């Protein structure tokens, strides 16, 4: 029997409790979803970004690409449509689409590197990821006897062989290889037939009596169960398959994801190996890779747009730590779990301190140390030695803890003014970074001069101006290097390319840096 006399008030839940629990529930759901985003690829948010990807794939490499693409489709629900053709045909299609401003292709996978290089020169592709390599061979039907082993006697032999069209990867490679040893014209003349695609040539070798052998890929030979004739001249004739993101792709992020999937050592590589290709073993797979980037604080404003653009394009997460280089060095030295994937410095001397942990550094930019004074330069300061003036109040960053401070005081020593500055007690304040010095110059009129980087002075108030310093020590060079132990070396290569791109260069120049990076047009 229900006892109606029970205290109903006690059984009621306070509305505030409901609201609180509801908010907690939403927070938990959000956290779980966000934290688990990589392990829940079929979530509606991920799916809605791209419904379909169109891949132009060379016919000869159809099988591994098709299988890998199917696996990708099943895992992530993105439909991958494969258009086959010869590498040259597909290149032609890309050009036509660009001319007609009707972009269709997302990913272009030719059978040879030369096609991808040419496409890049024409501006048809953006990113390029190596997938696998294979070898050009002379193959014949399995029931045939091996007739010859030297290409020089092939033209004069009775062997009925075929070639691929030069538009096909195999055809182009054959042409290059034979031209290099001066046998192209004779071989071309002696060929019984030319086929537009390598698979058609392989099919003809297998089924037709007219063609006994042909110049095809080793993987195609395995696919069609043909015998490979050992040919010394072709031993080192390799071709590299690459996945190239179309410059006009409407889904560059997903196209890059597919490219990474195909190249991943733990995903696509297996499919290529299965079909007797030599996989390139790219970065390990992650739908949304998370990388750690340590960056010197002086670069912050200049590099932030590049980081955002890279994250958006690659569909990755860049966990950036902006801090003084000393702090970053301290973290790097604390242990292997604190090593970043990429490190960009305020000054190259810092990277030298931890060179063992990083690959070869690349210079990006430089900035000069300058003197910040009141508008109108009331104390008439033209050069560093003018700081010796009586009653001048100078501010620097800490010489023991900061590159800027170290450079400043090194210049004082070099010019022989350090002792007089000490005697006059001219340096009335030191700070950890230039930011505090600039705040102090802007906030109060006690300081007359502060030594800062030009790159720190982009957003100065109207009451301050810069006096440049002409001294060899007045320069800091920013460089970067990827970590030796990074799980994503190729991703890091692309990240560094982004940092060295034209857009990035513009951003650095706008922030007052001098650009010294390669891989980009100099101003």
């Amino acid at each position, binding site marked *: 029997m229900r006892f109606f006399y029970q205290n109903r008030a006690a059984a009621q839940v306070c509305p505030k409790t409901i609201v609180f629990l509801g908010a907690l529930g939403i927070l938990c759901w959000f956290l779980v979803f966000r934290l688990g985003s990589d392990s829940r690829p079929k979530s509606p948010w991920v799916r809605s970004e791209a419904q379909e990807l169109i891949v132009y794939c060379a016919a000869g490499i159809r099988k591994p690409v098709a299988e890998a693409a199917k696996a990708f489709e099943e895992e992530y629900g993105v439909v991958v449509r494969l258009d086959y053709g010869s590498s040259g045909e597909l290149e032609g299609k890309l050009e036509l689409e660009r001319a007609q401003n009707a972009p269709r292709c997302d990913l272009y996978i030719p059978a040879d590197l030369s096609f991808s290089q040419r496409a890049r020169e024409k501006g048809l592709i953006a990113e390029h990821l190596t997938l696998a390599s294979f070898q050009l061979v002379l193959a014949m039907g399995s029931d045939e006897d091996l007739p010859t082993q030297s290409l020089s006697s092939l033209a004069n032999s009775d062997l009925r062989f075929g070639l691929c069209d030069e538009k096909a990867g195999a055809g182009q490679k054959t042409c290059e290889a034979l031209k290099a040893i001066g046998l192209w014209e004779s071989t071309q003349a002696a060929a019984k037939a030319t086929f537009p695609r390598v698979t058609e040539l392989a099919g003809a070798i297998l089924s037709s009596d007219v063609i006994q052998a042909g110049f095809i890929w080793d993987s195609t030979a395995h696919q069609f169960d043909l015998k490979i004739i050992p040919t010394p001249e072709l031993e080192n004739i390799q071709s590299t398959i690459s996945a190239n993101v179309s410059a006009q792709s409407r889904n560059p992020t997903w196209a890059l994801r597919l490219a990474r999937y195909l190249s991943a050592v733990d995903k696509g590589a297996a499919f290529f190996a299965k079909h007797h290709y030599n996989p390139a073993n790219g970065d390990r797979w992650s739908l949304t890779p998370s990388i750690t980037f340590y960056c010197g604080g002086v670069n912050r404003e200049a590099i932030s747009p590049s980081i955002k653009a890279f994250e958006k394009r690659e569909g990755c997460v860049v966990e950036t730590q902006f801090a003084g280089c000393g702090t970053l060095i301290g973290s790097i030295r604390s242990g292997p779990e604190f090593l970043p994937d990429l490190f960009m410095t305020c000054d190259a001397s810092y990277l030298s301190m931890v060179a063992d942990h990083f690959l070869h550094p690349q210079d990006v930019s430089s900035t000069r140390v300058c003197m910040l004074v009141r508008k109108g330069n009331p104390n008439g300061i033209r050069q560093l030695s003018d700081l010796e003036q009586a009653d001048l109040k100078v501010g620097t960053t800490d010489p023991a803890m900061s590159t800027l401070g170290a450079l400043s005081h090194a210049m004082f020593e070099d010019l022989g003014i350090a002792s007089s500055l000490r005697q006059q007690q001219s340096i009335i304040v030191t700070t950890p970074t230039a930011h505090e010095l600039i705040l102090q110059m802007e*906030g*109060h009129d006690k300081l007359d001069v502060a030594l800062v980087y030009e790159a720190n002075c982009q957003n100065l108030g109207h009451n301050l101006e810069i006096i440049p310093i002409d001294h060899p020590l007045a320069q800091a060079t920013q460089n970067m290097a990827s970590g030796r132990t990074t799980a994503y070396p190729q991703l890091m290569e692309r990240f560094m390319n982004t940092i060295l791109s034209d857009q990035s260069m513009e951003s650095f120049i706008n922030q007052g840096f001098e650009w010294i990076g390669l891989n980009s047009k100099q101003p």
Partner: protein
Amino acid sequence: MDWTQLETALSGLQKHLFLQAQSHRPKSDIPFFTGMICLAGFYILMILLMVCADLCYTDFQSLRQTLGEPEIQYSIQLSLFSCSLSTIMSLAVAVPIGYLMSRFEFKGQSLVDAVLDIPIVLPPLVIGISLLVLFNYPPFHWLSDWVVFEIPAVVLAQFMVACAFAVRTMRVTFDQIPRRYEQVALTLGCNRSQAFWRVVFPQSYKGLLAAGTLAWARSLGEFGPILVFAGSTRMRTEVLPTSVYLEMQSGDLKGMLSVSILMIALSAAVLVLARIFGMQRINA
């Protein structure tokens, strides 16, 4: 159902209720205390583990080397001096503000309350830059030479933050002292000043001790406003937390931890001593 049946049913119900009440046993207190102790223990353990981790990571050699540096010795002395001075100043200001806010109601009181909380909610660097900008204007500008980027700036920056916490503590303290004591004191011939010093203030010693230790601890840990307003000039305006920050900037983790351990030891020593002497005075 007629009235007789209803009466019978109700008396049966009554009996059932009585029996149920008799058989009710309150639930055990063990889960309550377990939960409280676990939460409290977790936090205390975390603090102790953090300190142990710092101790384990550094070594005696590092510690001795750090203590031997003249810059560190100077920053210890300056920290002790500036924290003590800012604490005294904080209490001198917090007591009257706390008393007035507690005892009197006036128009705009909630606004004044909000203003008193500003130093607590503002980021430390903003306090530093605000002080710097303030000293551009008279009459503060007349004192710039003596204050800005000098030791008085350290004390002032610490005071601005520490006092806000001391005010809160003293207000709560005075709120807890009933007004009746002062009222009786007034009827016994006191004016308000006598009533305050003879009756109210002696009862606020515990709150004063709490406010003083809080202000001291805040002063020791604060370095954001000091960086901008006083700078971090070695052997001049560098205090212990600035030393930690500078060691960190140079990538010297061991050096940083040595200074941190020094700060922990110093603050623990001062706070424990203050409590012992303070409680002795209160209990006397």
